């Protein structure tokens, strides 16, 4: 993904993922096999569950469901697409790069693909939570697994 995305393209990507999210649904298979984390917010309507199916240190499937604003829906949808098929190490690296970008630190844009549309979130600090709510849920699942593996 070129970093010279125009504002119009960035907006289009966010709106596409908000209006037609690909991963906003409950798991299609056996829900009990999925790890799930419920995230909600005191300040916003966000109230989502992130589902992740893991096997052999890999993210096999990821999806989410619930009520969420434009930014949280789009950022979580993009995240699910990015994570499917990644190993835990890869997934953790991507989450780390994404968080670095959100908090205006050095980051590697190559692994973030469409998620780089959230690069300016820090300018609207009140929305950082929206752009990270799904990612925080995933991170919790990865952390949890990390400890289980040990």
């Amino acid at each position, binding site marked *: 993904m070129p970093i010279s995305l125009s504002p119009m393209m960035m907006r289009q990507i966010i709106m596409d993922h908000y209006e037609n999210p690909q991963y906003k649904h409950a798991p299609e298979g056996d829900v009990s096999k999925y790890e799930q984390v419920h995230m909600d917010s005191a300040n916003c309507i966000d109230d989502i569950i992130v589902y992740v199916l893991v096997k052999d240190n890999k993210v096999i499937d990821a999806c989410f469901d619930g009520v969420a604003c*434009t930014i949280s829906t789009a950022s979580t949808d993009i995240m699910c697409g990015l994570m499917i098929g990644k190993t835990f190490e890869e997934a953790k690296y991507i989450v780390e790069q994404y968080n670095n970008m959100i908090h205006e630190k050095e980051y590697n844009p190559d692994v973030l693909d469409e998620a780089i549309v959230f690069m300016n979130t820090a300018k*609207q600090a*009140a929305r950082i939570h929206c752009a990270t709510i799904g990612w925080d849920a995933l991170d919790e699942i990865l952390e949890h697994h990390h400890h289980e593996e040990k």
Partner: protein
Amino acid sequence: MIDPKQIRKDFPMYVNHIKMQGHDLVFLDNASTTFKPFPVLKAEEEYLTRFTSNTHRGDYDLCFTNDSKVAEARHVIGQFINAEDKEIVLTSGTTMSINFIAHGYADKFLKKDDEILLTVAEHASNILPWFEISKKIGCKVSFIPLDKEGRLTPENVRRVISNKTKIVAVAQVTNVLGFVNDIKEIAKITHEFGAIIACDGAQSVPHMKVDVKDLDVDFLSFSGHKLCGPTGTGVLYAKYELLEKMDPVLVGGGDNVKFETDASAKYLPAPAKFEAGTLNIQGIYGLVAAIKYIQEIGIENIEDFEKNIRKYAISRLKEIPDLVIYNENAEAGIITFNMKGVFAQDLATYLNSRGIACRSGQHCAKLLHHFTGELATVRMSMYFYTTKEDIDALVEALKNGGNFLDAYFA
């Protein structure tokens, strides 16, 4: 007639030309909190620089000065709402005040089959304390239906109240829809059924004349920071016989006469028995100054001013074709809206990028979506320093929003 441009000279947030996102700040979140004028700063500074010491049991002059200030606070607040000095309990804000009623009165006097009446338009602070009491003693919490517009009417109170009703807990002005409820009539109906009325005055006392004797409310709660006073200050008014009957929720230093090893304790008479622990003395200095400041401007003048600026705001906002206004006919200086096809929080973020402070979401009234059908709205709220230029800035921003997600890419 209030001239907000003159008024602004009293407020450091205006005098200092505070900016947000590179624009002059347009502050339209006054239902949330308000700016503080110089006299409030000066009063607090006075405590910090000249009168720092505690209250109670002062054997020296400084303490005596602060005890006098607390007495003055009760007097000034009492006069402001037409109550006796001894009926004024100093709290940290509306939330603490309502919790005192729930845990100090309802918990003691309500029984399993009793009922507490609320509305879905109430703020969390006027719902959750009652939920907790209901869980604890098994009494019922019911909701008085709102009318088509979202208003609480005396007729609807009459429709649902019964001999089982023991407490009617409603706001005089609701914090999202901004309707002024006919508390006097609702109090009358409540008393006919032998119940008491606990009025949430957080959004009314700063904006209109509130007279507890005229309204005949049993309890009135409000916050200092919404009427130009410091955060962490607030008031619980109660008819004195109720304060005498109620138990203190917090106990400890400063609210007792004596206690013994057999766990017996004698508390001070009300209102002091509710004021355990060191008071927010600095805040109380500020609160007294804030109320005096408001009185100098004149609460009736503030009410008139807000009515006019609201009319102006509504007429201007109606120029915007895609704007949905939820409370066009409300009386208070609160206007709640959404832009068709734009998520409320995206709209508020966009306004932030233009230096305009509004609030989006549920505004702590998390049951109101049962009424509006909207999960989130944007709320703008005014005060007596709000100018037509503030409204114009909001209207221009809304008109020229183009794509509201632009705030992300600026």
